[in-house]
């Protein structure tokens, strides 16, 4: 039996790519099935973007067709990054950040994304907040590896944080900062949004089975591999990433994961991660990892951040109001993992069943 599948321009016998917290599982049986169901074969390509590595797996009849789809996908990621990056001076987000002390008119796409982000800010009582740019800088997570801010730095950053300090005027599509120095940072939603844009582009181009991911942040599944009901995706244990916390099947759905291990620094025995609680101005402590399933990656990305900040109990109320969502939390209870599931479609044999779990 031929167990080979295409991995970019190379043939590998099996894919077990680690996507940080979530791992795409493509067993050999699946890959051979793909070839049996010729002409579709699995292709893979990865390129750096948005400060991480975007990966695309897709089924296509041949390499030429796959190349065209990859080009379309990565062109779209570049387009979104060019608009939303706060690392590029030429981006629309940078222009807004630099100029919104007076109303800045933006295009409907960017405005709609900001509106969507602010809905999550409101619904999460500020746990999700794209105005955390100054806090990220104060804690050294913008172009840096972490830094404990002075009281003065923190006070200043707090004064320049808060979604209610930004006015979105729908009629003119304008953004206005009500206090100077606000800085929008779409790190908690932008990569998910990019995946939704890529999914749209791939679907328009005729792709029916693809899995796209933005580093450790989000994964979106278009359809399912031939003959399967979904793409198997593994959520790993934040304390031992080689261990499987849960394996789920994704089909026309997204999974986003926020973890305290992505960017962090340690000081005096404490770990400070890059996910801020905008209400305290400090990195979130006590949550190790949250994974959220939603129908769109924009939503799962924002919700995984919000859930990380809010914790399981308060998140349950938020997620209950959004159809199609599910979540799994790993929190730190005195050095022990506590796993909490909300409508989580857990598969048999995962670590979640080895560790005592709670359901909300």
């Amino acid at each position, binding site marked *: 039996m031929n167990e080979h599948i295409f991995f970019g321009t190379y043939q590998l016998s099996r894919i077990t790519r680690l996507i940080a917290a979530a791992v795409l599982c493509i067993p050999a049986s699946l890959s051979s099935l793909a070839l049996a169901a010729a002409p579709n074969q699995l292709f893979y390509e990865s390129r750096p973007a948005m400060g991480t590595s975007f990966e695309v797996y897709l089924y296509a009849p041949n390499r030429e067709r796959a190349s065209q789809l990859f080009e379309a996908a990565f062109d779209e990621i570049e387009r979104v990054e060019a608009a939303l990056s706060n690392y590029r001076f030429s981006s629309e987000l940078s222009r807004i950040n630099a100029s919104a002390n007076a109303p800045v008119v933006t295009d409907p796409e960017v405005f709609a994304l900001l509106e969507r982000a602010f809905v999550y800010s409101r619904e999460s009582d500020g746990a999700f907040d794209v105005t955390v740019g100054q806090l990220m800088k104060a804690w050294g997570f913008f172009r840096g590896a972490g830094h404990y801010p002075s009281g003065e730095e923190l006070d200043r950053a707090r004064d320049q944080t808060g979604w209610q300090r930004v006015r979105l005027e729908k009629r003119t599509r*304008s953004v206005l900062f009500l206090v100077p120095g606000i800085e929008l940072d779409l790190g908690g939603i932008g990569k998910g949004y990019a995946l939704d844009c890529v999914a749209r582009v791939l679907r328009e181009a*005729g792709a029916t089975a693809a899995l796209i991911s933005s580093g450790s942040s989000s994964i979106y599944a278009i359809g399912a591999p031939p003959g399967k009901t979904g793409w198997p995706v593994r959520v790993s244990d934040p304390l031992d990433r080689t261990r499987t916390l849960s394996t789920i099947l994704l089909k026309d759905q997204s999974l986003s994961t926020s973890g305290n291990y992505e960017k962090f620094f340690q000081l005096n025995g404490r770990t400070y991660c890059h996910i801020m609680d905008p209400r305290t101005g400090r990195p979130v402590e006590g949550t190790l990892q949250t994974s959220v399933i939603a129908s769109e990656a924009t939503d799962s990305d924002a919700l995984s951040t919000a859930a990380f900040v809010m914790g399981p109990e308060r998140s349950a109320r938020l997620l209950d109001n959004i159809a199609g969502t599910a979540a799994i939390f790993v929190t730190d209870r005195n050095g022990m993992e506590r796993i909490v599931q909300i409508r989580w479609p857990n598969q048999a044999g995962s670590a979640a069943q080895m560790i005592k779990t709670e359901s909300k």
Partner: protein
Amino acid sequence: MNRRSFVKAISAGTLGTAIFARGAENVSIREKHPVAPSDQVRLGIIGAGSRGQELMRYFLRVPGVRITGLCDVYEPRFAAARKITGEETPIYRDHRRLLEARDLDAIVAATPLSLHAEHIVSSLQSGRHVYGEKSLGLTLEHCNKIVAAVRQSGKHFQVGHQYRYAPWFHEVIQRVGKGEIGRVTHIYGYWHRNGSWRRSVPDPKFERLINWRLYKEYSGGLTAELGSHQIDFANWVFGAIPESVTGSGGIDTYQDGRETNDNVQIIFRYPGGRTFTFSSLTDNAKVGAEAWIYGKDGSVEVTMADAIFYYEPKRASSPVSEVTERGVPTGATYSTKGEMPYRGPGSRVKVPEGTEGNPNLSACKSFIESLRNDARPFADERVGWGSGVSVYLANKAIEEGRRIMFADHLKR
């Protein structure tokens, strides 16, 4: 130059060197049809493909701009374009019907190159100002028709050479013009990519419609789609258009039925013994898109995001005071060892605070300001004509395998 003077100058089209387009000296007095500053500017889009959609996004970031008509011949683009406008923008399948609409002040033409002349000329004749994508026209005749139509209409025309609106380009032009790197003899322009340039086609019947860049009937290939920006830059630096051109190219990597070359190498000779060499590859992206200006006293590397000066070792005759005036870091003056290339740091161009921006947005914004202020766009039809005819003659030189003298073709 501070931010205010830069913005003012770029809107009034007063920056840069002398306009060079031969035969375009006599600008007719235009009828005054300014758009009031407070008015909404209503745009119609002819060609809502990838570039057209990108331009729509930029124009919608300019206060007071509304897109009131979308014209295309490929049905799926209407939904995509309406997603960008965020409203049920009226759609047209024939540009003549769009031009009959009353609620239009200006047209954005982003169609395949072979259609530029038809769409731009008819838009101007309908009384609309036009933002037209580069290259100006597929043929010399097309380029001339557009220039004539702009003159006759008295309307404003801006060509899609957005780097004319990049502040670091202006800074380079100014400093090079003042002699900072000595006499400029050569410019090398690269636009290297690693990709087939072929787009996904949902049905083979759409092949030529979607992949028009690959067919000579519609496209000037790499020379037009990528090279025209670099050619315009060379024209700008040299303050002239070329005197002659030779070139080569081939379909050497992607033999997939395409007709336009997948690599070109072109040498333009300018008046005064100056040369611009352009190279475009599609199977190696190491150098990306950049231009190097070489002068007797230094070099400048210009990219889509920045520009960096490097200086040849100072000679005894160099006045020392210049160094202080420029504030050039010592590290920018290089010394090559054993003919090895210099790989050290250079002196990055600083632009006025708040003007860095995005050249695409700046170009769109400037066009709208030109309409509101009734001011000639900086990248006007003469700028477009200079690069447009150079593209056309370069492709002719490649195709015929000979040196083309511009004077033999540009007589009027």
